């Protein structure tokens, strides 16, 4: 057993657990977007950040990947942590304003509105990559992937063409934390009309 503290509360964890695993075990709330038990964590959304402290030393890490160690002192809601979450949520509010999950989380952290310009009021994808990881790790077909880099990054199929690799299992839609995959299914599978023509060939 590994013993440490979360928000000054003593906790026990098993070797191999992450800080997030432990927090959930004890019912301590840490928000996440890109985390799912079915796939390996990848640390994209950064919403699950926590602060580690040791005397004057302090560091912000992501709880979904940080391995538990004896004597850790974890703070899940410190000022530094809240600052990171607030800014992420304010930026996501402008990036994917259509997502009700983001709106709910933003409200939880006191972000009422965003100062940043909204490019697409319909957008709801946060590019957490959960759909891509599920398609690869759970379904094992890799029909979709991250395409492009930096601010140009999107979820897509190879060459942005409807993909034969997709088995229409719908796992990507199920795991999507914001519901964005629903809008993108046709992109992956092709329009229903062309899909039928395609299978006839």
């Amino acid at each position, binding site marked *: 057993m590994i013993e440490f503290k979360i928000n000054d509360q003593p906790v026990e964890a098993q070797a191999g657990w992450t800080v997030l695993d432990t927090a959930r075990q004890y019912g301590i709330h840490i928000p996440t977007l890109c985390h799912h038990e079915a796939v390996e964590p*990848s*640390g*994209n*959304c*950064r919403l699950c*950040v926590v602060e580690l402290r040791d005397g004057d030393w302090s560091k*912000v*890490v*992501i709880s979904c*990947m*940080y*391995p538990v160690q004896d004597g850790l002192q974890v703070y899940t809601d410190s000022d*530094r942590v809240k*600052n*990171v979450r*607030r*800014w*992420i949520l304010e*930026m*996501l509010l402008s*990036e994917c304003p259509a997502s009700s999950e983001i709106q709910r989380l933003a409200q939880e952290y006191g972000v009422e509105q965003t100062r*940043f*310009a909204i490019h697409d009021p319909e957008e709801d994808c*946060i*590019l957490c*990559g959960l759909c891509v990881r599920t398609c690869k790790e759970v379904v094992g077909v890799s029909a979709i992937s*991250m395409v*492009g*880099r*930096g*601010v*140009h*990054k999107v979820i897509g199929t190879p060459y942005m063409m409807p993909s034969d690799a997709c088995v229409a299992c719908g796992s990507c839609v199920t795991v999507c934390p914001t519901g964005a995959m629903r809008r993108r299914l046709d992109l992956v599978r092709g329009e229903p009309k062309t899909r039928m023509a395609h299978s006839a060939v």
Partner: protein
Amino acid sequence: MAETNVAQSFTERRLGSAADLKLYQEELLAQKDPQQAEVIVCYGTGCLAAGAEQVEAALKEALDQAGLDTKVRPLIKTTGCRGFCSRGPLVVIQPEGLFYQKVKASDAEEIVQTTLVEGQPVERLLYQDPQSGEPIPREQDIPFYKKQHRLVLGRIGSVDPTDIRESIAAGAYQALAKVLTGMSPEDVVSEVEKSGLRGRGGAGFPTGRKWRGALKAIEKKGRPVYVVCNGDEGDPGAFMDCMIMEGDPHAVLEGMIIAAYALGSEQGYIYVRHEYPVAIKHLDLAMEQARSLGLLGDNILGSDFCFDLRINRGAGAFVCGESTALFTSIEGLAGEPRPKYVRSVEEGLWGRPTVLNNVESWANVPLIINNGADWFAGIGVPHSTGTKVFSLVGKVNNVGLVEVPMGTSLVEIIEEIGGGVPGGEPFKAVQTGGPSGGCIPYSLKDVPVDYDSLSKVGSMMGSGGMIVMDERDCVVDVARYFLRFLEEESCGKCIPCRLGLTRLREMLDDFSKGKGTEKDVEEIESLGEAIKDGSLCALGGSAPNPVLTTLQYFRDEYLAHINERRCPAGICKELISYQIDQEACTGCRTCARLCPQEAISGEKKKPHTIDQDKCIQCGICLESCNFGAVQVISPALVSQKSQEAAS
């Protein structure tokens, strides 16, 4: 460089032992007559851009015509960067060590006649002391070189990097021989530990401790273990690693082979960015030649130690200089970083224990082995030992590559070696550590340049870029520049970096237009901290540094932009106007001819005026005016003046 197929001529020779290497070195040295003349043309990037190839061709022709081919050895030698880039193309005549600068192809004949035939220096090509105006004939007496301590750059500029025999004659691979004959792997690791060498890539992690960590990981996980060189140098204005790989590739190879011996590694990788084709070519050639001599590959120097290397070319992503992104790139995946709560020495390339060091760190290893850890630790300051190579660029007279002991002060580097800012004003700030570093103001000019002192003032050592700025550089503009660079280079994996850098840059864009409040300054700082804390890798984790440090040291300048709608440096276009001083203007029409907007009018020999409605603030008039008549002022003042004129 010499177009001989060197590798071919080695096929009959394989060095079977350390003694054999020593013998070979002596043979090579015996072939050289130290009294014979040698013409060295610098083939560093700066000199090449200034026309070194033409100079070399002209010198060759002039030598042929003078019939001196037997007196000069070899006819012409081209080498890696000699460092004094702003004075290129550089030509050095040995054995006298005559240093010719800004050589043109048309100077070749005179150099051959006067120097090689008559034995006299060509005085007009010598470097002149900026104070006294006296010519300084020898390289080592020039202030730019005098204060330097060139160890890592020691062989660069004197050996032809495409011919391994030159490097061997100059001592390459002697450290490897020493290690193989008399040092256990444990000895090697403790020697590097004792030397205090810290990673030259920027973060300054102790190299010996890293190797020790890898040894411990191997105990747990077994082999294979990999040795990797990070040659993905990408900071704007930094070119030290490029020049080391181009000018002395064997130093890098030797360092890596020594580490491979210490760790029991059989395979190493050199990750070089695709934009460095000459570095790749020279490394490749160096590896080929080292292999054929038995210095790399199977049974190195006749021992049972086998190790080989391969080059991986990066495709141009800045983020691939980050260790985990570099590994994913070598593994054939998209170059994106992984969170590293487990260190690379335990879980690096292909999940195996891996030692990743920067080019300059590797090049330091043979020096430590040859001269001993105590010697190395005696250079520099405690906790930052040895020397550091900097690329000194920006508003400084002597642009180039400099190597100084750690702990040398900023002002010594910029004013004594760099010759200060053109025009003689003190510098305004220095950006160290590239886009991840910070701006250090003139008031901190005495700060010693070592890892700890730089981080104390909010900047970092970084890989060694040093960009000097003067009063005509606007800190808001500089911060925007670095943010734009990182915004383009962000891989987009994590949200704080992908979205945050764009949003931070947009907030600064507003400042450069005079929009914003003092509250926004605090918000910029708050967002900057969120990006630093929240980002996945060091790219995002250090991206706000240029903004945060300029805010720390030049807050007044930020406030002038929003409170007075004034850019004190006269750079931010929306906050400045150009105006012609009616007294100083001679009516020469130069600016009027060059203005792309045809905004300048006036008769010949009479003062000109600028039509503010047409002007796009490109600044061509300011640069072209020979009489200092074009002035930069803020728009508020223009309207005030035109009102005065109207009344």
